């Protein structure tokens, strides 16, 4: 903490003034003590206004019966909103959809990314180009990605069905059949996200020291044993990080739903954030929307806390 010490000594610049007036020294000392807080203030005020206060506010709002139409009319209803959610079949389905979507996108997405990373983690230029290619959907607006896939999945004129028919397979009604609608969103989500995960995996692979592999090669360890005994354990922090990040971002799925399915058909693609949006902004059930937000907040909060705990432990053992 040497840097910090020099900062503390900073009033030394005004030390000559100290001899003139001890009062002046105290002031400049106070100023330099306050300086870091002043520098932090703009950012912290923003976080207070648009993050911490809203978190308190959403908890409060979840105990009220209210709507966006008339904010004056708030009525304390205690746990009523939560009780309503408990018995609401639609909400159960929303939770179920969110769970299926998350498990599928995270599970399949990470597996594919891991395999791609093992394959594409090479020096030659081609591999760099392919890495960038796989990554490119990640920087494209989900609006465009959603509309593009709606077009590909169009039951009559879409390219996917044209392809299926060309090889003699039956056409699909991708987004309009409740049996395949969630699966369709999962495909889009994996396609969009796989590149990001692949690049993080590659970054992780490159941080594994090469001499471990040399030792394994000397022992003539078969590739699968090297993978299981060296690569996967050494990558475990990366795997864990990606599990958390991907799960949290799956919980947030919204754009694809709003554009491609609006939660339908028959609620088959409705998920947490879309449900909150619908309840709050369309149906004016502020209380229900807030209670659902708190549930989402708790889920994300638990994941974040686990992440911090495990990661700080890892740093500790290093």
């Amino acid at each position: 903490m040497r840097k910090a010490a020099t900062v503390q000594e900073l009033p030394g610049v005004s030390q000559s003034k100290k001899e003139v007036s001890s009062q002046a020294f105290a002031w400049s000392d106070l100023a330099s003590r306050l300086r870091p807080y002043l520098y932090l203030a703009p950012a912290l005020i923003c976080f207070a206004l648009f993050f911490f206060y809203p978190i308190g506010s959403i908890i409060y709002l979840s105990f009220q019966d209210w709507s966006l139409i008339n904010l004056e009319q708030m009525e304390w209803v205690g746990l009523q909103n939560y009780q309503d959610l408990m018995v609401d079949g639609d909400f159960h389905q929303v939770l179920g959809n969110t769970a299926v979507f998350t498990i599928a996108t995270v599970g399949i997405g990470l597996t594919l990314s891991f395999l791609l990373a093992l394959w594409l983690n090479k020096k030659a230029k081609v591999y760099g180009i392919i890495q960038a290619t796989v990554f490119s959907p990640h920087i494209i607006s989900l609006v465009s990605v959603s509309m593009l896939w709606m077009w590909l999945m169009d039951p009559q004129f879409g390219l996917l069905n044209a392809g299926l028919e060309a090889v003699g397979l039956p056409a699909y009604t991708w987004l309009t059949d409740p049996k395949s609608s969630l699966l369709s969103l999962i495909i889009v989500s994996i396609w969009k996200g796989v590149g990001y995960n692949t690049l993080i995996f590659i970054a992780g692979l490159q941080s594994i020291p090469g001499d471990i592999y040399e030792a394994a090669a000397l022992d003539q360890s078969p590739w699968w044993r090297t993978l299981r005994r060296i690569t996967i354990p050494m990558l475990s922090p990366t795997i864990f990080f990606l599990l958390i990040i991907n799960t949290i971002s799956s919980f947030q799925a919204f754009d694809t739903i709003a554009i491609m399915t609006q939660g339908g058909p028959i609620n088959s693609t409705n998920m947490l954030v879309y449900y909150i949006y619908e309840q709050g902004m369309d149906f004016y059930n502020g209380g229900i929307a807030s209670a659902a937000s708190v549930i989402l907040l708790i889920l994300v909060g638990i994941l974040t806390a686990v992440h911090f705990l495990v990661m700080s432990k890892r740093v500790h053992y290093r």
Partner: protein
Amino acid sequence: MYRVVLASRKTVEWIGLLLVAFLFVFPFLWMASTAFKTMPEVLQFPPTLLPETWEWSNFAQAWESGPFLMYTWNSILVAVGILLLQFLTAVPAAYAFARYKFPGRNLLFGLVLIVLMIPGQVIFLPIYVQLSGWGLVNTLWSLILPYAASAFGIFLLRQAFMQVPDEVIEAARLDNASEWKIMWTIMVPMAKPVLVTFGLFSFIYHWNDYFWPLIMTNSDEVRTLPIGISSLHMSDGGTLWNVMMAGNMILILPILVIFFVAQRHIIKAFIYQSK
């Protein structure tokens, strides 16, 4: 024999690579191709790979289907405005975290990390209520202010500032440079690569954002491109896929151009999140 095996393995590898590239690039090429087709050709079976007649008017039709000049202007204002404010709030905060020791530092930095991890979608309702209380809903401020500070920016810049050698700062202090001046004229230029990285990340994220403008705005004067584009498919009389794809090209193109120019920086910007 060995050479044959090696050659065929290489061929398989190349076919695999092409297949992967195809899977991720082809949808975009298909979008571009559709954007130039006439509607009868769009609905043709089997589909044509390239347009038979290049229908440039699809772009004009998409552009004229709403006040797209206004949407574009709003998108630029919002993305650039957010970027500037984030820059102004993150530099001093990161400097404080990187270069000072003060009571409560770890606690405050912990708060920043929490902000970094919890997504805004969780709390959009109370923010809406709050902004509507201030009379800011349906203004550009409602799109900019909630993002005025970036936890990710603070996090990234803090790391960059910590790497500046102490000698540089001490030399500046000996020259009687004020802390404020050291921060902006020495630290910021030295952190330029990180600033570029963060700038690209922030700009792309907010240029693409659909959720926040959808929640906070309800009139064309303050809406952004993603909202304008998304309304294209609600036209009556069947979906005009060609116009829709042309509209999306307008949204995508600036980002793709930036990606080609600054690919390495952009990948780094998004990968940094993991550190």
